[in-house]
């Protein structure tokens, strides 16, 4: 009587040990790095670091999306980026929060510039050339169109102009171009 109970307990123990070791081995074999999704989401975002989504940069917004934030907050990314984010996160595509704007670069009207360096301090990608009380100018190749320089200027001399897309400044980033049929859900 007691022997049969002991056999039962022993058998189940052995079974548990075997299965436990199988699971332990596969836990190591199939190990997933901590949260690769934030890196993938960051790769989809346009890296303008403009803050129009409400987060201080593209990486924090990627992190917020991984935690459940809405995917429709990136105007520079536009419809294409929103759909890629929707597909990666497995949520429904939503309409963008604001209007989709064409690619803009900043332009400083030099007759109004007083050389205060406030726009230089605001630029996240260091696209403005200048020094104190010297003429400031925007290096249009570096400018991402984030518009963070427009507000600090005391003489209101910075305009956002749409840039003509030529083959020289076309972004050949094929990951940003959705290749699925747009009528597919």
């Amino acid at each position: 009587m007691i022997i049969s109970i002991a056999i039962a307990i022993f058998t189940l123990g052995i079974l548990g040990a075997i299965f436990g070791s199988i699971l332990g081995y596969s836990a190591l074999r199939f190990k997933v790095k901590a949260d690769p999704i934030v890196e993938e989401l960051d790769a989809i975002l346009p890296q303008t670091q403009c803050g129009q989504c409400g987060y201080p940069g593209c990486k924090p917004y990627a992190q917020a999306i991984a935690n459940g934030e809405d995917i429709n907050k990136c105007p520079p990314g536009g419809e294409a980026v929103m759909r890629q984010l929707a597909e990666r996160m497995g949520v429904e595509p939503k309409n963008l929060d604001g209007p989709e704007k064409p690619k803009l670069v900043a332009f400083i009207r030099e007759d109004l510039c007083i050389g205060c360096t406030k726009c230089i301090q605001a630029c996240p990608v260091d696209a403005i050339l200048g020094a104190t009380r010297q003429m400031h100018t925007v290096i249009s190749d570096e400018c991402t169109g984030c518009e963070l320089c427009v507000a600090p200027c005391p003489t209101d001399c910075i305009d956002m102009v749409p840039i003509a897309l030529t083959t020289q400044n076309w972004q050949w980033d094929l990951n940003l171009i959705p290749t699925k049929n747009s009528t597919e859900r």
Partner: protein
Amino acid sequence: MSDYILLFFSTVLVNNFVLVKFLGLCPFMGVSNKVETAVGMSFATTFVLTLTAALSYIVNTYLLLPLDLLYLKILSFILVIAVVVQFTEMVMHKTSPTLYRLLGIFLPLITTNCAILGLALLNVSEHHNFIESIIYGFGAGIGFSLALVLFSSIRERLASADIPLPFKGASIAMITAGLMSLAFMGFTGLIK
């Protein structure tokens, strides 16, 4: 050979696990809102069902029967199922993080799917041999997938249909499931 084919088709159509035996109704109702999640869930469940059929046959024949421990079969089958589901979760997390994220909590809930335990116990009570057990498990998975994919497609259509207000949501889904079950009764007698 024809026995196995007959067994397969009877499990998929005539004795469908979801619509005729009424096992596995929780994921049937819970994951069938969209076709993508339904397809992912049915893959996972078929994988778990086939593996469980094989493993539970081995445990039953080579461990429980020789040692006269048949009363422990529910306990050991649950152990087998939990291990297989955990393994499936790990594999899915590695190979398809999107699907893993889509299925969410329903993936570990496959452990509590009564279709899986039901399959293991039915294999014992019907005295299937090893090949028959695996075919039974695979057939159960295919039958489950068939029912789930059909149901989720209908539910997607229903979401945009003009349903009267008291029937919206779960009510019309239940009624649809009942009608599907009635339809599958038409297969009775297909296989003698």
